[in-house]
């Protein structure tokens, strides 16, 4: 018993030493002919569909690069660890990837809370983690010290950007003078979007005539919608998730509230038109990371390749995960080394990289500065409306 425990301890210590050795630039730990990338993703649990898309896309990216001869003359492999959609499991999965599998970089969890839980592990082991989708500011900036997390990156734009994009869209493209904001009060995501929408809208001379809130799992919104209707706003901003948003828009249309409804990437689900009804959703818009209908070359190539491989249209999770993986591979190429610290340094220098979800440049806090896409719902279908640059 104690013998095996001792053996385990030794093996863990050796693992740590080897990673430390890598970090110091010796480069001795990596096996000769393959470069391992890790994926710490939601394969099971509540966010399983998101994790599945992200894993598919990461695999696609690696297959494509390998088909062209790999990087540094070596083939890439993806080691997938399931974090079960839980923050504590995400930290465990990260531990396994960096110490046992000795990956050189990790495509890190979907959910912000899981990324934050695992951040200490990859930082201690000096391996970068890039989250495809986490949008909370704390993912790349430690809230306690206010310092940038040196080894954390993301491929998605952050909440504040989405909120202000929608405010600008409402004022410029829909010529809205007044707006109502209706927020999911149980979600930091919705609150953040609502706050930045309001700030931008007011800064540009608009007026917020009603500011209301609901809670996730509510089903009756008619009373509040009646109140919002009596204030006659030009647009209503509902930055929630699809389940409640669908019911809100359905009930609003039943009450005769015909003005445009606006929202964020939480609307991106095939369930939205099912719940809300195709007719009711007309004249509503949301911001997203990419649209499969976008005519740019990068999007077209990616959508075709993904459809060929998995026989379905890639969602935003897939697009962002593909971008995250490709950016890491680019960084390995530029670093001309599989040394995790050098990869991290090169990734931070990413500038004007043509990704599926737009032209990406990392700012000082490792957040991408890139364009957003506005999607319009037309008869239950998502259609590409316009692209908004930062």
């Amino acid at each position, binding site marked *: 018993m104690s013998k095996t425990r001792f053996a385990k301890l030794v093996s863990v210590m050796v693992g740590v030493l080897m990673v430390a050795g890598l970090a110091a630039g010796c480069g001795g730990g990596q096996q000769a002919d393959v470069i391992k990338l890790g994926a710490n993703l939601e394969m099971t649990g*509540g966010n399983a569909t998101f994790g599945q898309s992200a894993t598919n896309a990461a695999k696609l990216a690696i297959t494509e690069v390998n088909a062209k001869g790999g990087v540094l003359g070596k083939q890439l492999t993806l080691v997938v660890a399931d974090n079960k959609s839980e923050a504590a499991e995400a930290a465990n999965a990260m531990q396994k990837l960096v110490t046992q599998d000795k990956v050189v970089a990790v495509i890190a969890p979907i959910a912000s809370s899981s990324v934050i839980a695992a951040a200490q592990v990859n930082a201690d082991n000096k391996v970068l983690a890039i989250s495809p989708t986490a949008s909370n500011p704390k993912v790349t900036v430690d809230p306690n010290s206010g310092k940038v997390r040196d080894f954390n990156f993301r491929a998605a734009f952050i909440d504040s950007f989405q909120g202000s994009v929608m405010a600008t869209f409402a004022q410029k493209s829909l010529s809205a003078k007044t707006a109502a904001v209706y927020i999911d*009060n149980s979600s930091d995501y919705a609150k953040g979007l609502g706050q930045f929408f309001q700030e931008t809208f007011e800064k540009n001379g608009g007026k917020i005539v009603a500011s*209301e*809130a*609901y*809670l996730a*799992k509510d*089903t*009756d919104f*008619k*009373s*509040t919608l*009646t*109140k919002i209707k*009596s204030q006659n706003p030009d647009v209503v901003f509902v930055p929630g998730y699809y*389940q409640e948003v*669908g*019911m809100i828009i*359905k009930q609003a249309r*039943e*009450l*005769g509230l015909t003005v445009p409804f606006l929202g964020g990437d939480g609307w991106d689900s095939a*369930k939205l038109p*099912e*719940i809300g*009804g195709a007719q009711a959703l007309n004249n509503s818009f949301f911001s997203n990371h990419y649209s499969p209908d976008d005519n740019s070359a990068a999007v077209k190539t990616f959508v075709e390749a993904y459809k060929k491989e998995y026989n379905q249209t890639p969602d935003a999770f897939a697009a962002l995960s593909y971008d995250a993986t490709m950016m890491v591979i680019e960084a390995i190429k530029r670093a001309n080394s599989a040394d995790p610290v050098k990869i991290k340094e090169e990734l931070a220098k990413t500038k004007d990289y043509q990704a599926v979800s737009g032209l990406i440049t990392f700012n000082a806090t490792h957040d991408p500065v890139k364009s957003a896409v506005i999607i319009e719902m037309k008869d239950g279908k998502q259609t590409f409306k316009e692209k908004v640059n930062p």
Partner: protein
Amino acid sequence: MDSSSLIVQFGQQLINGISLGSIYALIALGYTMVYGIIRLINFAHGDIYMVGAYAGYFATSVFKFSFVPALLFSMATAAILGMTIEKVAYRPLRSAPKIAILIAAIGVSLFLEYSGMLLVSPQPRTFPAVFNAEIYNVGGLIINSQQVVILVVSLLLMVILTYVVQQTKMGKAMRAVSFDTDAARLMGIDVDRVISFTFGVGSALAAAAGVLVGIYYNSIDPLMGIMPGLKAFVAAVLGGIGSIPGAMLGGTMLGVIEALVSGFWSSTFRDAVAFGILIIILLWRPTGLLGKNIREKV
């Protein structure tokens, strides 16, 4: 805001509140009847409402039933489920301390919720449109045909229930059991059958509420019973637990209060106000609004 638009808004909130309240009332009836008969707060009641909604969903989407057959099918399914739960989980505990049966009820509630997630997946489902929502505009007030259906079906079921309890032999037996179980047994009433019947009727009413909600809000999920179950419990206590007219009054009041609070104040205070009113009423009238002030038997 000028006064005429204020009146229109007030009327609109009343309509919103009454259609929400009649749902609460239907669920509250089951709580109140079961409590009246065996002094049990049946915490699994909200989940029977959920099962009813799913039965209605499968009846309309898989068996392609129209509204009335689907409603009856769902009510029958829930009645059987309610009677089974009573027989399996509550009857063996009837002579046990009250707390044991209460905890059994919480267990049944969690059992239904999580087996629901296992069987039908935790994802919300969209209820098929059984009939189209016609929207009527009456002098600025907007009324939806679904709201009318909810109100009519609820009223109809409540009238039938009142008739059953007041006029039929089974109703008389129910009242006798609720008044004094042992005396009723001595008079030759099959108490087990009466209790089983009560569970059946209460569950059927909850299932009807589930189907109506499914049609009205268009989305159902395995945890949908938790909040309405709690609210209906509050409604039952508000009106006077054990009293059938009390449950109807409590349910409607709760719906209207919620609508007015979110319409004229803020939706975030809605639940706080609803539960606050409950506490005040309990302090002022511990038996609820229509409850009789009789001491509980020992």
